[in-house]
């Protein structure tokens, strides 16, 4: 071989470049990322897990939950919705504006104003939505261009925004998963109905979620015959006639699952905030039941 050193340098350079790009650059960028303080609420994000929940993470790991559940919400894009937040007092003018801007037909406009806050349009560009909002906002009526996050995961209700690196700061190892046999759990704590139902689901998945493919984790519980007049520990009567008592592992796993939430608005991942009704309406109820 005549050009050994040159060949070696060439191979070294290509390997070093790809190493730098794929491993070292991300390490430099996010390797030392710190938990941040949410400016609006003053809370630390991500919140520190309780002792039970961090033990539950180990149970989650040992049971191999990660084989079937991912913990990452994906987003495919973002656009804007036009919301009417407050109709204000000068309703005839606002209704006329709505008709003029083709946002409602003349018949519907009044009803639409009654329903405020109401979504008028979706799938708008930022400039378009803000211009429409500016035209609808007058002295006391208020319209807003509201961010909407898009994607199948968000449509399924698995989260309100994409998952970002910061969401995993408290996790070691990061159990992000790569297969979705079951639903994504990145926000399970935010949508779950409470520890009792989580435990019932672990004991008898098909009872709480008919058609579920999840195997029951009965070895995490002990059963004993229930006495007359005694109330079972778990809701939904998962084992009729028996009381199902969760073991510490099951309790901590439920605590971990309840602690999974990645919905806090972050600077790098904004969360849609549609306007809400500020105060209960003082005038007559908007909808009267039809006779």
């Amino acid at each position, binding site marked *: 071989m*005549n050009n050994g050193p040159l060949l070696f340098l060439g191979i070294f350079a290509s390997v070093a470049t790809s190493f730098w790009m794929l491993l070292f650059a991300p390490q430099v960028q996010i390797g030392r990322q710190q938990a941040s303080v949410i*400016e*609006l609420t003053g809370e630390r994000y991500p919140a520190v897990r309780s002792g039970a929940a961090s033990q539950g993470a180990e149970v989650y790991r040992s049971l191999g939950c990660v084989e079937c559940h991912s913990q990452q919400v994906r987003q495919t894009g973002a656009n804007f919705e036009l919301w009417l937040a407050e109709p204000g007092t000068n309703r005839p003018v606002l209704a006329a504006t709505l008709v003029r801007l083709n946002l409602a037909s003349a018949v519907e406009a009044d009803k639409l104003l009654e329903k405020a806050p109401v979504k008028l349009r979706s799938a708008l560009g930022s400039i378009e939505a803000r211009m429409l909002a500016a035209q609808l906002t007058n002295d006391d009526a208020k319209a807003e261009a509201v961010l909407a996050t898009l994607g199948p995961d968000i449509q399924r209700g698995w989260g309100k925004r994409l998952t970002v690196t910061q969401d995993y700061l408290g996790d070691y190892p990061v159990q992000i998963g790569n297969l979705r046999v079951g639903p994504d759990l990145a926000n399970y704590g935010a949508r779950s109905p409470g520890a009792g139902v989580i435990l019932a689901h672990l004991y008898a998945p098909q009872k709480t979620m008919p058609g579920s493919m999840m195997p029951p984790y009965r070895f995490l519980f002990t059963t004993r015959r229930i006495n007359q007049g005694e109330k079972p520990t778990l809701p939904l009567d998962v084992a009729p006639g028996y009381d199902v008592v969760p073991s510490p592992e099951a309790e901590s796993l439920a605590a971990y699952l309840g602690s999974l939430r990645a919905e806090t608005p972050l600077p790098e991942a*904004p969360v849609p905030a549609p306007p809400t009704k500020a105060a209960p309406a003082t005038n007559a109820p908007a909808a009267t039941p039809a006779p």
Partner: protein
Amino acid sequence: MTKPNQPSSQRGKAGKPSPVPATRPASGSADSEPSVQRNPVPPLLVLLLAGVMYWGSMYVIEFGGEADARVHYPYPSYKYIEGLVPPKGDAAAIAKGQAVYAQICMGCHQADGNGATAQNAPPLAGSEWVLAKDPARIIRIVLHGLSGPIKVKDKDWGAGQMVAWKDALDNEQIASVLTYVRNSWGNKAPVVNAEFVKTVREETKDHPGYMTVADLEKVTLKE
């Protein structure tokens, strides 16, 4: 590219003896020995390489997020993300107020707005004095200072004293710092405008010394 068909032994390191032993039986003609030849790189390969490099740089430009760690797919850049969130309320005044707060108020009321017992500084976060819809009382506190006990969030704060800021801060600064305080740490209250601070300043021009809770309670708040 060097000339083709040039025997390798003639390049570079000229005087080096041939590694092939002389006793080796010659193949073909007596003088020739197997040698590596240099051929020009096929133009098609160069073209392919250029194409791959072009595609690669386009990919990095489109999905690289401008090499900003805060940018995740599908967002193209951090600027784009910032544009998604419209500044709520009077964002400019809040930013200005934050600067004033850091300079003047933070020493006692702390960065988190929770006050400090050591300095006798009551909390601003969640304080009913701060959050009153009508800022008439809190403007008076900033203008003239406050002396004596005050009850904040169901806790009695002792005889601390807050300095009067009417000479150090102008109406605009007081309005912006109050707007910041009323819209930080979970607080949410209407913005304070400089015009109103000016009227209050005129009204209380002749007030002697510090405000007290008794003075403040004489001010009726508009709902």
